[in-house]
């Protein structure tokens, strides 16, 4: 992000759903218009410079009853790392017992984000 970039973003800070017009220069969001409140500025800045998403997926198990178990990140992960995380999850092959809430991956790529199981499977 070297030159000025412009982007239309719908704010998800509240149900108003303002259409934000965000302009960034050299990686620093400097201008947000179209927002009805201050939350729009923060939202637009983060969405433009460092967007993050919670990732949910399923990973393979050795269980015959439940061949896949759902997982999620414990916090939103920066978007560019999502394909890497998915790739890593699709390589996994886990063996029950599995306890919902237990970690599968800790501190993914030093982001502080963990991946936890979201369903329990008995042996």
């Amino acid at each position, binding site marked *: 992000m070297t030159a000025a970039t412009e982007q239309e973003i719908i704010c*998800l800070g509240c149900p108003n759903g303002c259409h934000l017009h965000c302009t960034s220069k050299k990686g620093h969001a400097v201008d947000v218009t179209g927002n009805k409140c201050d939350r729009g500025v923060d939202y637009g800045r983060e969405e433009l410079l460092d967007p993050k998403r*919670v990732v*949910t997926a399923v990973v*393979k198990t050795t269980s015959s009853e*439940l061949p*896949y178990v*759902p997982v999620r990140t414990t916090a939103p992960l920066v978007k560019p790392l999502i394909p890497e995380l998915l790739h890593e999850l699709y390589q996994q092959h886990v063996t029950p017992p599995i306890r*919902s809430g237990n970690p599968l991956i800790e501190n993914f790529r030093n982001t502080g984000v963990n991946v936890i199981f979201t*369903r329990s499977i008995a042996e």
Partner: protein
Amino acid sequence: MRELEYEAIVIGAGAAGMAAALRIAEGGFRVALVDREDHLGGILMQCIHNGFGLHWFKQELTGPEFAERLAEKVVAAGIDIFLNTTVMDFSVSNGVKTLIACNSEQGVIQFNARAVVLAMGCRERNRGNIGIPGTRPAGIFTAGLAQRLINVDGYVPGKRVVIIGSGDIGLIMARRLSWVGAKVLAVVEILPHPSGITRNIVQCLHDFNIPLYLSHIVSRIEGKDRVEAVTITPLEGGTPEHSKSFRIECDTVLLSVGLIPENELSKKAGVTIGHDTGGPKVDAHLMTSAEGVFACGNVLHVHDLVDFVADESTRCGGYVVDYLRDQIGEEKQGAVTAGANVRYVVPHRYVPGRDTHFSLRSIIVKDRGTLLIKRQGAVIKKKTVQHVKPAEMIYFKMRGSDLPATEGDPAPLEIALE
């Protein structure tokens, strides 16, 4: 045939059934929870995305996490659970409710109970419901079926996908398919506005550059053995403008075109179904037209959030407890009707002087709307509602003090939006 006696039986062990059963057990009554699947939790188990539980558990959870938390309480409460058990018949005679069910271990079972809670959830509308012309190839799925295939069974149903309808399940599946390597080519919505919430439009479509065609229909599906292409046609002035049609080659079509309360069993017991909700007509105690038969959750009316399903179902369980204690009196109830710009209101009756929780669905889209509660031609209460839209149910509680008794029978209440 095994014959089992309970004070209450709950049909369906999703969020609604579990919440209702829990409340009945807390009231000290013997309750059985019956479900045809092999797990507690119902449809929540395939909804692996986040966004559940913010109201009910005060934290953001996925579907399976929400379900498991409820299930742990159900097990701890000592409720008798019958899984893999399909209820085939339901009848009411002389106040006794009889269910005929079967499973592969116990064979046919007859359940007798004083009270029954209908909590069977809803099912998806399919191709037949929206009548798309064309051939009948493989590769056409409802969004929920595709969700189950990917999230539970681990199959990806196709590689190049067109989604019909912009309901939340379809949007969630657009992201899910993108994350498992499929290409979602278009979401086609007949209405001029999206049916799903804004968050899902942004995070499930914009994030993946998936085009959303509003006021468009799929006018044709092509393919001999497998879907090969769809034709998409814009609507102009409400009619298809075929000269502007375009074709997209794809191998899979997903349908996210609405949900219908699942009431085949309710009808067997003679329960009256409302045309507005597709679910049973219920009184102020969420009791259906069959005495002692209650309904809650998506079988009653389709909700947006499981948190409100759990809320309504807990209240329903409370009414069942009142009923079993013979505390539901003969107090007169007044009718509740949907007025201008309101598709439906649940419950369909109210008791004067008592707090009542209403759920209603708007027909209109409006930034700032006003709810008007009218009785005998006069507005007795007004309430401002922000961001009115059909996709988001409106919940509100009427205080009993705002609903005083009227002379004679309780006067009908009309709830309108403007």
